[in-house]
């Protein structure tokens, strides 16, 4: 076992320890932040796989997350609450028939549905390159969101689905997502994606990013590689969608506009496009930071002068910080480096 493998194991042990700590000792509010960050880590590293590692400028994660979230909500709600919730139209038969309370199964099915969608979309999407790819995927993400609005028999239209909560026999409700689910999936996602990046496929993905034509000339099946990265990232985005539903207890189309995608894009670019470590750091900074900035939306006491509440001020400050960070840290926090690369550098420097 090399030194770095030991280091990795140590990191994962620390992460798992942190999950236990936060599950048993953190307040509920803190727990929901930890959950949220864990879910966004899953989304960010899987988005980074297609966007940063494979270099395909896709703007579609909102679509995949939406699919995962809707599938999960429809599976977790029972027939009665569906009948009760669907206002505009009677729910379709198949929607009523499908139901499970097994959250792990739900996550897997959500992920698989998103993957199937990715496989279907890969053909049209990867016919174009570069910025054209960006606008095509943006379009698909937008269309998926509109489909959710316009098929009320399946999705309850713009009202979305609510009260996706676990109901105990005594009538108590609780969230499906807990720290072990979100954190556990996050750890699994990190392991899977890092292994993929350091495999033969990962090298091919980086080759596609750096020079697609050269990769093609060297015999890399670029379409296959892109499709693979797209589907793996879609799978984890679908699972992330299921976790989001399990955490929030509701899903609606306006949760998944392209703002969602932009948020993820900001996270991975801030962290360093192409670096999984960077995506994780970026998530913690952006999600934690925007949570921390929440005080700006409240009424404030500035030097004895009581100000009113300005809802939205938080986002103003956030965007100013974002612009400044991009102006001065152009390649993000980590660049394209991983944690191990930095440690390697230190090792070389100390020799």
């Amino acid at each position, binding site marked *: 076992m090399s030194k770095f493998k030991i280091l990795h194991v140590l990191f994962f042990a620390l992460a798992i320890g942190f999950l236990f700590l936060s599950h048993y000792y953190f307040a509920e509010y803190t727990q929901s932040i930890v959950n949220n960050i864990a879910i966004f880590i899953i989304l960010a590293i899987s988005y980074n796989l297609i966007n940063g590692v494979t270099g395909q400028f896709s703007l579609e994660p909102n679509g995949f997350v939406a699919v995962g979230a809707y599938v999960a909500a429809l599976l977790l709600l029972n027939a009665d609450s569906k009948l009760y919730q669907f206002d505009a139209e009677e729910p379709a038969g198949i929607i009523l028939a499908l139901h499970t309370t097994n959250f792990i199964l739900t996550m897997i099915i959500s992920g698989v549905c998103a993957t199937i969608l990715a496989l279907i979309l890969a053909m*049209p999407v990867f*016919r174009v390159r570069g910025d054209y790819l960006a606008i095509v995927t943006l*379009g698909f993400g937008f*269309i998926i969101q509109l489909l959710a609005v316009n098929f009320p028999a399946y999705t309850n239209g713009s009202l979305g689905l609510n009260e996706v909560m676990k109901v105990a026999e005594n009538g108590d409700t609780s969230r499906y997502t807990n720290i072990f689910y979100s954190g556990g999936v996050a750890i699994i996602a990190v392991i899977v994606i890092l292994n993929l990046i350091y495999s033969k496929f990962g090298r091919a993905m980086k080759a596609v990013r750096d020079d697609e034509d050269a990769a093609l000339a060297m015999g890399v099946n670029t379409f296959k590689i892109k499709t693979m990265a797209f589907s793996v990232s879609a799978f984890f985005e679908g699972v992330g969608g299921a976790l989001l539903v399990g955490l929030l207890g509701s899903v609606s189309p306006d949760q998944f506009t392209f703002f969602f995608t932009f948020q993820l894009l900001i996270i991975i670019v801030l962290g360093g496009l192409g670096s999984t470590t960077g995506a994780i750091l970026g998530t913690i900074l952006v999600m934690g930071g925007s949570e921390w900035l929440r005080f700006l939306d409240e009424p404030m006491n500035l030097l004895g002068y009581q100000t009113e509440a300005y809802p*939205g001020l938080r986002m103003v400050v956030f965007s100013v910080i974002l612009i400044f960070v991009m102006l001065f840290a152009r390649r993000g926090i980590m660049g394209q480096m991983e944690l191990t690369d930095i440690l390697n550098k230190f090792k070389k420097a100390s020799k």
Partner: protein
Amino acid sequence: MDSVLFFQQMVNGFSLGSMYALIAIGYTMVYGVLRLINFAHGDIMMVGAYAALFSMTSFTLPFPFALLFAVTVAAVLGVATDKIAYKPLRKAPRISLLITAIGISFLLENLFQVIFGGAPRSFNVPEYLEQVVSIGDVNLAVSAILVPIITLVLLACVLFILYKTKYGMAIRALAFDIQTVNLMGIDANMIISIVFALGSSLAAIGGVFWALNYPSVDPLMGVLIGLKAFAAAVLGGIGSVGGAVLGGFIIGFTEVVAVAFFPDLAGFKDAFAFIFLILVLLFKPTGILGYDFEKSRF
């Protein structure tokens, strides 16, 4: 379908398409010179509409001056965003530029939400633009006739500037190869400023016309309109001004016609731009009038 309704829908499609075209030109020109999808462009349009609204209500300027004021504000803002957020990043990876564009977009949207509130404000259309003119059996508001005419005149001006003046030549040269342009003694930064001023002015006019037709403004109005205008620019072939105009008209017409003739599709109105775009890109990956940027640079 009687001919009166048909004619009316044609005018509506024409007017909507011309607004998309006005906004799409800004996207296509900025993309042409900087290879940047300027996500803040739609929000500059929104600022223009707000500027017109407030110059009419707070300063009681007459409408033509309000329009002029909106154009000035938007042009200054366009140039300022370039100087602050894009110029320092000329040599940075393109993705950083894109993120600052998204940042500017978020900033404008949220700043306007904080200052003016998120609720839509009604736009007071001057009376003479609301008067109804009857041509045969067709009744049209003055604005419905005036907007497309002004737009066409403006488009002609832009095409004239681009293809008949020395600044236009510089802009096209910049779109072709930014490094060589610097060697030829052209001040690239000044030309880029002109591009931003021109594009933002047109966006402001588009925004004011939009506010006239759907008499309200809100801080997020630029998001969807901007995206659709960008889709129009790509559909026509990004980098080509003629293509942006063509794409704008195609999308405007499709939206109006599809909703008028197939009311069932009304829910998908906003998606037509993208569906069209995806279909076109599948067969002609650079848009209708576009050329391959990545290849043309070598």
